[in-house]
Structures are given as structure tokens and as C-alpha cells.
């Protein structure tokens, strides 16, 4: 209990004093996770729309694969990205290992299947509603896909939120490809892991609270956006 009360106090003092190290860690965490989620959305939304709308050989297989990849173990992804980006790997020449970019790549790989699989369901539902009307209007396939993505944008925000939750809370992949280097690749989760291993549980818990507040804030923002969209019948 002592640790908990210390952690609350420490978390509050770190936040209200705008601790430079904490700000740096939060900023990097957000930069890495938000970038990964945006990239994953750019991959996942069209992929989700394609599997929801188009009929092509292997569609079922692709759907099952995407669903299965939702449970990708982060450490496995981290290891694969590590092998690809390491000096001896096929992308070693890019010199990206132990950089925020490597962390973004790893998180994108983790999050893209989640966004693709969840957006497929969202887009499939709206497609059922629009399908006959679109076929009647002879709307070309590419316009159908973009219209479905646009019209389900508020539901897709929730999908992105699920991806963000996975990315911001993930530690296994970013610690392997980022290396948890102070002032370079240290993010919230890796910092928590480090402080825990050092025995500084109060600081680790404080960082944990900050992470929770961050996740709650993003969720609340998306929830209120969806609520106002629902009031306007846009969601």
C-alpha cells in the first residue's frame, strides 16, 4: 500500500512539475504509437474494406489470417523486425535498428492486422446497408470502398483506438528493436520495465498511472467525438 500511495504522489508531482524526462518519454511514446496507428490504419482500412466488399480467390484465407494475426506475440514481431533491421539483415543497410523508426515499424506490424480485422467487420455492416443502393447507382468499386471507409469513419475511430491501446501498452517489440536507450528510444512501457527491474516500484507505478491517464484521455476524447457524431446520425 505504501508503494501505491508513494506512486500516486510521485505521479502527481511528475505531472504537475512537468518533469522534462517524463515529458520526453511521453512525447516519444505518443509519437511512436500514434505514427504506428496512423500507418497501420493506412494499411488496415483498405485491407479491411477489400475483405469486406470484394470477392476474390483467397478472401476467406486472408480474413482468417488477419484474424489470427490479431494475436501476434509482440516479442516475435520484435525479433523478426530486429533480424530484418540488424546489420546482417536484409534491411540492415538502412541503419534503423535502435531508433524510434524501428519501433514504429514493429508497432505498425502489430497493429495493422487488428485494424484490418476489426475494420472489416465495421465496413461489412455498412456495406450491407449501402450495397443495393450503390449497385443501383453503378458506383465504381474504388469509390464504393472509399465511401464505405469515409461513412464509417466514426466507428473506425474506435477501431483505431483498439490499435492505439495495443501499441501504447506494448513493451516486448519496442524493447527489442528500440533497446530502451535513454533520451532516444525510451518509452513509457520500457521505462516501467526498467524501473521495475531496478526495484524503483514507486516510479514504475507512477509511470503506470501516467500511462493509464493517457489511455483514458484518448478514450474519452474518441467517445465524445462518437457521441456527437451519433447525435447527428453520422455514426
Amino acid at each position, binding site marked *: 500500500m505504501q508503494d501505491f500511495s508513494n506512486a500516486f504522489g510521485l505521479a502527481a508531482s511528475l505531472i504537475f512539475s512537468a518533469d522534462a524526462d517524463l515529458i520526453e518519454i511521453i512525447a516519444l511514446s505518443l509519437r511512436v504509437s500514434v505514427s504506428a496507428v496512423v500507418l497501420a490504419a493506412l494499411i488496415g482500412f483498405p485491407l479491411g474494406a477489400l475483405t469486406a466488399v470484394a470477392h476474390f480467390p483467397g478472401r476467406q484465407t486472408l480474413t482468417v489470417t488477419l484474424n489470427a494475426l490479431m494475436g501476434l506475440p509482440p516479442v516475435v514481431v520484435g525479433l523478426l523486425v530486429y533480424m530484418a533491421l540488424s546489420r546482417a539483415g536484409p534491411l540492415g543497410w538502412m541503419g534503423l535498428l535502435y531508433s524510434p523508426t524501428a519501433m514504429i515499424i514493429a508497432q505498425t506490424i502489430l497493429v495493422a492486422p487488428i485494424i484490418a480485422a476489426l475494420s472489416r467487420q465495421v465496413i461489412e455492416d455498412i456495406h450491407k446497408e*449501402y450495397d443495393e443502393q450503390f449497385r*443501383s447507382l453503378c458506383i465504381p468499386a474504388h469509390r464504393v470502398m472509399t465511401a464505405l471507409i469515409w461513412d464509417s469513419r466514426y466507428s473506425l475511430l474506435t477501431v483505431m483506438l483498439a490499435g492505439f491501446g495495443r501499441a501504447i501498452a506494448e513493451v516486448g517489440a519496442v524493447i527489442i528493436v528500440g533497446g530502451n536507450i535513454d533520451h532516444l528510444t525510451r518509452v513509457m512501457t520500457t521505462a516501467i520495465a526498467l524501473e521495475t527491474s531496478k526495484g524503483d516500484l514507486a516510479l514504475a507505478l507512477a509511470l503506470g498511472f501516467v500511462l493509464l491517464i493517457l489511455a483514458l484521455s484518448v478514450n474519452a476524447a474518441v467517445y465524445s467525438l462518437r457521441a456527437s457524431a451519433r447525435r447527428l*446520425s453520422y455514426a
Partner: protein
Amino acid sequence: MPDASRPMPGAASLLPLEISSLRYDVGEDRLIDNISLTIDSSGISVIMGANGAGKSLLLRLIHGLLRPSGGDVRWNGSALNLATRQRQALVFQKPVLMRRSVAANIDFVLKSRDGQDRQRRDQLLQEAGLYRQRQQPARLLSGGEQQKLALARALATEPEVLLLDEPCASIDSASTLQIENLLRQTRERGVKIILVTHDIGQARRLADDVVFIHAGRLREYQPAATFFDSPKSDEAGAYLQGRIVI
């Protein structure tokens, strides 16, 4: 840029509509049974019949939304294909509006065809009496307004043939009157209209000719005056008298 006030293209190039031995089965049930029909007239053809007669199914088969189990639909000799379907528009009984503003619903269709044309969009909304609501979310409109928007969106495609499936089935009288006026204006522009309805009053007000179907079968196809004055089939006679037709 299309001129919003110009008459729409005539239907001459898509007509006649030739339906031959058309069938539509679901499992063991034959819902459309060997219908053969040629519609060559301009104006408004009304498809009538009791609930469950197969009116909406026939409309979907004519438009190519459903694949027939047998038989053929030809527009001016051409089989149903993208080119013939692009020259038609269908308004559904329950309008499917996009989760966008009123104006954006029209813009979407205009962009899909000739590119966005604000003047044309505003003209269509004014004709439908929806200009003031153009920035409102489409799904917050009343039922009648939603149906008028669906009609305006269909007209945005500049169809040569306009198909309507019970467009006034569940809307208020004022909206029904506006929609009927819009249909008359559209007919005057040379657009062929095929309207499904089970509202005898509406059919009397609008029809130039009537297709009457019963239990998936064509019972008669007559000029409207002839049909309403002296229907040939017992089913049509009973239907017009307001008796339940089984």
C-alpha cells in the same frame, strides 16, 4: 458543365423494354412466373398488384439488381449491362441515405458521374424543396424529406428511365404531393418512369399505362384509362374494388 434547367435525355434510346419469359425462383417457390411484356410507351407505367404479388421483385429484375432464374430483360435490344443500367436510376421504398449531409448525398452521385457540379446540386435540391436543409445530416430529415432526397439523388444521375418502388408508401400527404409533382415534371422532361405502387389513388393520378401482376404472373397491361374503367382480369377487378385478392 451540365445545365440544370435543360430537359433530361429522352427515353427513346433505351426503350422498348422487352421482358420475355421472366422467372425468379427462391428454392421451390416461383415468385415471378413467366412474365412476358414489352413497354414501349413514354410517360409513367405503373406496376400494380396486391402485397406480395411480386411488384418490387419485378422492378429489381428489370433494373438488374437481381439475376433472373430464367427468361430475359432487354432494353432496346441490349441485354442488361453496365451501360444500360447507368442510364436508369432506382428509388427504393425505404431510402438508403449516406451518413452525410443532404448536399453531400447529391455530391457523391454527381462526383461518381460527371464530377461535382454545385449549381446542378442546388438546382436539384431546390426542385425537391430541400435547399434550406442542404447542410443538415440527411438521416435527420423526416421520412418524406428523405424520400425526396432519394429522388433528387436518383435524378442527379440524369436517368433516361426512372424506376420507383413504392416511393410514397410510408410518408405524409404533403410529401406525397411534392413527389408526385416532381414525377410529373420528370415525365415532361422525357424521362420514362416505371412506378411500383399498391396505392390505387396514386396510380389513377399518375399512370399512363398499368401493368397488373398477381401471384408473380402478369394479368394485364393496359392504358390506364382502360384498366381503371374495365379491367379484364377478375383479380384486377377485385383489387380495384378494394376486395382482398388471394
